[in-house]
């Protein structure tokens, strides 16, 4: 079956449909990762986006039950050059096509994704849609009428608190669209985690007597997260805070900084990031369309700790006054390299130090 990817600038790519048989709209973004399509598709940070894989061939190893990053992925479409006819891997439980079908996500193959990537690189991320008809005018009209709210936390966040029990430190995690990999890393470190909805206020958080607070990743425009920023501004004074991606941006917003929308973002996992204190460079898994505006940083409050070595984008900060830090990239990887996974250990250390000083106080 034919399917079309239409961009807001009028570019139309014809291809073959796979996955769910539905029409969807969204911001069209590309990722350069060469593995990990399953993790990317199920990453809630891609909610409402149409995801383009620059790796020309996906689906090779199917879909398994271990590598999902959410239960109900909210990604609005998958665009690729080619889907493998036969997938093969010992953990495989499903094919990519069938998985997308079940999750209601449309896919299109046979697209010159390199051409598409170059358009997105030059013109910036664009709105677009996956439709079954090549009626361009109609598609463009629908694209322009579609609602692209940047406030996506309600779409992906849990509505009720739930526990992820463990024997050690008490962590409250605020779900802005949390990837399971963050939960996995906390579990691996024995954390007794309680996950709260994005609406959690400071008192909701503190009521659980957390040793540390984790701010998750998530989709959308960080500037819409004013309530969350207010919460963090309170909580950071009391317990160690660790933010990832959206969580990172919220920590910055809570401390007076601003964010801006990047031209086409960082999505992939070959982005080298320098830890400024040591000069150490790590390859990081990234998925962000917004970043912290360096001009907006108050040096009395925020110290930049990490930057991307090529474009200098702020990739990590810490607070001057409080034990709180955050990174723009995903130390939890999945997909991508685990070069920075020790940041979770750093968080544990902060928690332990905090507990100690409380005991000594």
């Amino acid at each position: 079956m034919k399917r079309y990817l239409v961009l807001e600038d009028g570019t139309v790519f014809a291809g073959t449909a796979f996955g769910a048989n539905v029409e969807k709209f969204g911001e069209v973004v590309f990722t350069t990762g060469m593995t990990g399509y399953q993790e990317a598709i199920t990453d809630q940070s891609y909610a409402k986006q149409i995801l383009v894989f620059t790796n020309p061939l996906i689906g090779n190893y199917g879909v398994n039950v271990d590598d999902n990053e959410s239960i109900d992925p909210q990604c609005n479409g998958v665009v690729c050059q080619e889907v493998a006819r036969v997938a093969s891997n010992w953990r495989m439980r499903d094919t990519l096509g069938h998985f997308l079908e079940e999750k209601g996500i449309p896919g299109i193959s046979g697209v010159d994704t390199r051409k598409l990537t170059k358009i997105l690189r030059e013109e910036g991320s664009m709105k677009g849609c996956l439709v079954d008809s090549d009626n361009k005018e109609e598609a463009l009209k629908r694209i322009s009428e579609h609602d692209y709210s940047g406030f996506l936390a309600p779409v992906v966040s849990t509505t009720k608190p739930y526990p992820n029990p463990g024997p050690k430190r008490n962590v409250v995690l605020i779900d802005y669209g949390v990837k399971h990999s963050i939960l996995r890393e906390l579990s691996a470190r024995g954390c007794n985690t309680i996950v709260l909805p994005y609406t959690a206020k400071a008192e909701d958080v503190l009521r659980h007597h957390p040793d540390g607070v984790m701010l998750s990743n998530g989709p959308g425009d960080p500037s819409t997260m004013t309530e969350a920023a207010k919460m963090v501004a309170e909580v950071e004074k009391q317990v160690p805070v660790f933010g990832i991606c959206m969580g990172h941006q919220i920590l910055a917003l809570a401390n007076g900084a601003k964010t801006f929308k990047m031209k086409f973002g960082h999505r992939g996992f070959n982005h080298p990031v320098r830890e400024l204190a040591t000069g150490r460079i790590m390859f990081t898994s990234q998925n962000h369309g917004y970043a912290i505006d360096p001009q907006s940083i108050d040096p009395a409050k925020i110290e930049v700790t990490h930057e991307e070595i090529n474009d200098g984008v702020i990739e990590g900060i810490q607070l001057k006054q409080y034990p709180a830090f955050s990174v723009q990239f995903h130390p939890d990887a999945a997909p991508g390299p685990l070069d920075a996974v020790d940041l979770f250990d750093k968080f544990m250390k902060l928690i332990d130090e905090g507990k100690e000083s409380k005991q000594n106080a």
Partner: protein
Amino acid sequence: MPKRTDIHKIMVIGSGPIIIGQAAEFDYSGTQACLALREEGYEVVLVNSNPATIMTDNEIADKVYIEPLTVGSLSRIIRQEYPDAILPTLGGQTGLNMAIALHKSGLLDELGIELLGTKLDAIDQAEDRERFKELMQKLGEPVPPSRTVHDVEDAVDFANEIGYPVIVRPAFTMGGTGGGMCANEAELRAITANGLDLSPATECLIEKSIAGFKEIEYEVMRDSADNAMVVCSMENFDPVGIHTGDSIVFSPTQTLSDREYQMLRNCSLKLIRALGIEGGCNVQLALDPNSYQYYVIEVNPRVSRSSALASKATGYPIAKLAAKIAVGLTLDEIKNPVTKKTFAEFEPALDYVVAKIPRWPFDKFVKADRHLGTQMKATGEVMALGRNAEEALQKAVNSLEIDEKDLYCTDLADKSKAEVDDKLAQAQDDRLFYIAEAFRRGYSLEDVHELTKINFYFLDIVKHIVEMEDEIKAHPKDVETLRTAKYYGYADMTIAKLWQVSEEEVRQFRKGAGLLPVYKMVDTCAAEFASSTPYFYSTYGQENESHKSGKKSVIVLGSGPIRIGQGVEFDYATVHSVKALQRMGYEAIVINSNPETVSTDFSISDKLYFEPLTLEKVLDVIDVEQPIGVIVQFGGQTAINLAEGLEEHGVKILGTTVDDINRAEDRELFDEIIKELHLRQPIGKTAMNHDEVIKYADELGYPVLVRPSYVLGGRAMEIVYNEKELEDYLKDNPPATNGHPILVDTYLEGLEGEVDAICDGQHVLMPGIMQHIERAGVHSGDSMAVYPPQHFTEEVKQQIVDVTEKLAVALKCVGIMNVQFIVRGGEVYIIEVNPRASRTVPFLSKVTGIEMAQVATRCIMGESLPEQGYTQVLQPESKAIHVKAPVFSFTKLANVDSLLGPEMKSTGEVMGSDHTFSKALYKAFEGTGIHLPNNGSVLLTIENKDKEAILPLAERFSKIGYRLFATAGTSQFLQEHGLHVVTVAKIGEKDSEELPILDAIKQGDVDVTINTMGHDLSSNSDGFIIRETAIMHNVPVLTSLDTVDALLTSLENRSFATEAL
């Protein structure tokens, strides 16, 4: 960290002659490294014994020494040059071994010379099996359990410890023969006993079998600041069990989930950090297809064949950066030379699929054991890029230049099921074609997987291609079918076969339907950043990224995969042609399919198209580039073979025209020219059928030289001495196969020589004349050669000049050509003319100082020789004497006869230069690894007809203090002439009191073997067994008495005269 300022002069050690397992990739890496060091302002001293390389060009290093890679010769150079440091990790295993030997000799410490890059201890730790195991244990990284054993019981004990199945690998056997997989004790006992017997060291390695595991490779880099990264990941189509150099390889990994990928990436980075490698390193891993269990197979602490492949697959120049890291620069301060925007600290992202297929020499060595295992047998490889796996694989197959031009090979249809199954289960070079055949017969993925253990995903790539055959057949001239076929990489040629029309018809139909390829850029970053790399591949997509520039352009065709007869020499000539074009202001565009070489380094040409060298792909590029013409003279027979088709399509072939190329190559036409010019040539006839061959041979009188027309490297060329031998020959080489007749020539024995001449159509330039050491009968590529000639009179030289000049002008040669001749009785006979650059061009260019391919290119582009300043035909001879000697790879291949003949067998060459002929000879022998003691012993095993000839040679050996060993007949003959000879027993001679001949070789009683026994070519002949035994035990074998004479000349020069008064 900024680069080091405490060192100024750096010595780079090259990899020496090309052998199987160590080939052109080190010319590429060495060249890159030298240029990178010079770019940083260091003075570079290069040592390499291989003249046929770009790396040994004057402009690559400040000083170039083409000298044997031995401790002695390197020490002399070091004491002369006093380098501050040596960079040994870019010259393959040879470079590393030399560095280790130099270190052990104490010289480096004595002079305070530092080894750059990876430290010796790290190298040792990576290469010493036991130390490596220890390190892995410390790191908690698993290696397959293994043990070296010297008897069967030990093997059985160990297998009981680790469990079956196990693999037995005998040490140092030819081509790794004698080993095998054992499922139980009985098999283990039998195979180990046999393996120990075959192994010269009576040693076998018993290893836990991980056959069937996925074989994964990572190319990793690390700098002195401990920044480490993965440049490229690769996955072998063939599971563990076949050497990675003999495996079909895809990049990036195709069947690993991110978890598996990251697990192995972490392991690779952990290893490179633990070893403290500064530069590039290759990690080979085996992953269980059914669990997370993996093993580290091997770490190569240097750049390698895989790193060359990874560089071409990603665009990321590993060797260049390894050199910069070695002088202290770090990855985060070096700009990525591809994007020029990002830093070198960047893991490339690919947006295409890469397929590599090895190129094996079994078209030459038809009797060789073609089974693939742990010993690499391929001489070269091809790479292809596509936007899907089918496309990449099909393009790679099209690039191979073997009899099978594509996967659709119908001649397997008559093979029995047993044959097909055996070919699937016991991998040989042609397994891919049998996999296709199996699917054609309806085998399921499961069936084929069961036999091959190849992953379903990979198998389905082939299955998909085969399924499309029916689809294409069923829809002749259907645009949509064609579109799909092209999208999945079907060549026009294959579609033509399926549609039963001509390739030209498909091309016209395709173009008429608007189905044209587009060209995509290789940019390391999957288009995330703007880039302007001039490196492209074709695909059937929507956007073309390669556009004609405003400049006048010329396309230079490369020579494809390296194989016997067409080696790195042709890449050398290609690169030089490109340089000349650029200097003349043209845009030089290269098309080639070989990932190992300098010509496919995108920084060499103005534009590189990584494409199969097929008519379709070349014409497609021409359609886009609209060059003023194409140069075919430098890409070996590969490029020459494309000339006619290109011209038929209206493409201008620059230089010698297609008609004139044809006049040189077509026997009848060439004979006419010889007659017109009143030149001499051995009488020859062209036979169209079996009876004619026999008749002509009778007329000419035996021995005769027979060969099919249009051949390279003397393929299927033989000297036959009687009708029976001729009948045997014709059985293997039926006349008029592929429309090519059989040539029958009188076999003239005499001094052989050759020249490479440049001609602008009117004037001729001959930089020099080369004399072959071996008389006619040994292929010119396997002969030693000397410049200037040592045994040609002035009168003969003048004849050679006259003959060559006449031929060049008569053939209307514009560019370069090669003439081979025999001198007999003071007369020059022409044997053949090749209307293209030959394999001697780099050698002759280097020894005469005339960049021949560049001068020829200028002629091709219309600049006459006088305009270039050449007014004299034969240039003055140099004072120094230069000897070129062939190098062979016999130890890598079983069942290949080392007896030299008209069919070429060598894989590489070395050069020895000095002020006297004997010293130059000595160095040449040293370069090839023939190092003889002052007082040694020689085994003489010769045919009856050579008895008279051996006498003076035996006397000379005796005179310099060598002991003579021979079998009864020869021994008696020599003793009759007053020589002392140790008699050894013939093979199979029972109850003899003499030492059996093979034991004499095995025990190390002889230092060199001379063996001319070979006219009965069956591989069972005693001569063959003697030669093979000697090669296996590292005893040099000489099969031509002329080589022996040369060797004696070099030995005598070292020796004092001892004569009684």
